[in-house]
């Protein structure tokens, strides 16, 4: 299912906020139906953006794979689980979470690249906390777990 394509060039770390915003707005403008957007969407968008951010860094700094690979895998698992919860009703969700043309490119310096990832994790954790606190009962544990995972990544990266 999940299209795990490596971003080709100039891939972008800071896309998180932009992607989240796109999805957030999509609830108001894009939706053809009256049903409210799933609370899964913004969490999924952040997880997809994190996967893309790790991919971008790993394309540039392949030697960081041992350190970053397992963290990327965690995000990949979040994407899979969230997509599963979302069901097949909204196939366009993945498209809206990808492009973010104004984000910065991966720095040449490996530590600077890792610092950017840490920053992206922090923002995503913050978003995840908000998502958990406002979530319907059935999503609270999953969103809380994902937010906590992002917090553990900050610990590993800093």
């Amino acid at each position, binding site marked *: 299912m999940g299209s795990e394509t490596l971003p080709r060039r100039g891939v972008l770390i800071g896309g998180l906020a932009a992607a989240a915003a796109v999805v957030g707005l999509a609830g108001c403008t894009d939706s053809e139906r009256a049903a409210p957007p799933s609370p899964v969407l913004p969490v999924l968008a952040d997880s997809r953006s994190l996967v893309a951010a790790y991919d971008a860094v790993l394309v540039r700094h392949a030697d960081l794979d041992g350190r970053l690979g397992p963290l990327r*895998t965690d995000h990949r698992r979040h994407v899979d*689980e969230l997509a599963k919860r979302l069901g097949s009703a909204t196939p366009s969700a993945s498209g809206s979470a990808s492009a973010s043309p104004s984000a910065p490119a991966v720095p040449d310096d490996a530590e600077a690249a890792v610092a950017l990832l840490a920053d992206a994790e922090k923002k995503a954790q913050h978003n995840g906390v908000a998502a*958990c606190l406002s979530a319907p*009962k059935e999503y*609270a*544990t999953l969103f809380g*777990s994902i937010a*906590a*995972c992002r917090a553990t990544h900050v610990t590993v990266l800093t």
Partner: protein
Amino acid sequence: MNRAQQRLQAALAAEHAAVYGYDVLGPHLAGDEQRQARAADEAHRDRRDALTVELTRLRATPSPAAPAYALPTKVTDRDSALKLAVTLEERTAAVWGAALGDLRAAGRKRALDAVTDCSVRAVRWRRLAGVAPATVAFPGGS
């Protein structure tokens, strides 16, 4: 006792067990690791005390600590102490994580803070213990 109170009682039991566990494992660590164990112990005592207050406020009777807890592993040295520390944090995170859906507003926020704190400590212990990967995808999840 309603669902939320049951969750808080379960969290209290987990915190009691964590405090007990750290008392057992702490002496097997040294230096900075022992300091970290002491800080973790204090964090669990704080949560235990806060839960006791909260349950009392809700007119429930907080479960007391058991005199002893069955530990999943025997603690004899640094390695087994670190292993137990990981287990304590992961279990406590899971009990708090399971409570999230039954709690609301400030109660859910406190539970999520607990999930996060425990999960971060679990990862620190896993790294010190040389466990790879250091992180798990769903800390505090089922």
